[in-house]
């Protein structure tokens, strides 16, 4: 791989990592500002998790999103936050697609209340997932040996 392409890939990965980190941290911050039960109702509306898991997720996810988002932005040891964020985004995106296909008219819950699942929210979260997967791939990529 020539060095100019390498540089483009590097800066693309850095930019996407920072964007995903900001979005993730911001989403968590918005949820932390609201009562936890409001987010719990949003999770519960997907009808996927039992009550205890809903309560646990509502208590822990927002803070985890902020922490992981900041960690990813900083870029220290990026394999961990990028992998965990990608995994979470796969779960969120799958749940949203499932709800949309099942005809459930519910809020996405991504950035707090009042964000119904639509083609736009799927496009937004799908793009975020793609960006996160790219950042994860880049974090695990083997660097070419220097001559």
């Amino acid at each position, binding site marked *: 791989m020539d060095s100019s392409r390498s540089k483009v890939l590097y800066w693309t990965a850095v930019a996407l990592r920072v964007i995903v980190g900001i979005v993730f941290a911001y989403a968590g911050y918005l949820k932390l500002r*609201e*009562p*936890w*039960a*409001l987010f*719990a*109702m*949003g999770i*519960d*509306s997907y009808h996927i998790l039992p*009550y205890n898991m*809903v309560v646990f997720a509502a208590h822990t996810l927002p803070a985890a999103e902020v922490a992981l988002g900041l960690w990813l932005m900083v870029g220290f040891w990026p394999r961990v936050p990028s992998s965990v964020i990608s995994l979470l985004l796969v779960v969120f995106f799958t749940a949203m697609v499932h709800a949309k296909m099942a005809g*459930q*008219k*519910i*809020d996405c*819950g991504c950035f707090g*209340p*009042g964000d*119904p699942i639509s083609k736009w929210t799927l496009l937004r979260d799908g793009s975020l997932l793609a960006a996160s997967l790219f950042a994860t791939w880049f974090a695990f990529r083997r660097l070419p040996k220097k001559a």
Partner: protein
Amino acid sequence: MKISAALLMVLLPLAAAMTQIDKERAVGNPSAPVKLEVYSDFTCPHCKHFHEEMLPQLMRDYVVNGKMYIIDRAFVLPHEHSREAFAYAIAAARIGKYQPVADALYAQQATWFTTGNVWGTVASALPSPADQKKVQELSKDPGVLAEIETESRAGAGQGINETPTLVITVGTKTYPLPPAMNDYRLLRSMIDGLLPK
């Protein structure tokens, strides 16, 4: 001056009518710390579930002890008979019979939604022929019909597009709850967290 007087003459009876309707379609202490507005439609099965399962629990846990004020709001869905049901219910509110009519409309929802005999259900909740006559007349009143439109538009203006949608207000902060909210334990956690300690 004349214009102001004319406006007052038009607006005061309207305001009085609004107050009367609000009072009839609300339960609890108006100065309670938590206000809950319920945007619902008589044709909606989830609204029936809320009215019959969750509302009694809210009454028991928060309304009787003065912690919550619950207001019913009309949110007309594009279903046949929805508007007609609201017209009768709000007309019944004007003679102080909203609760029995609303209870009957939800209890017999499947029947009148299928047969289209909304009046049959409303009449069954009004034993007095005089009340039945008043409700039938009032259901055609432009003020009643305007009330339905005003509330539905107000709901849509708040971004509401599903029923039942609950909106909790504590002080100056308003929390619209997710439309598919149906777990009373979570609603209770939310309210308990918002109540002043």
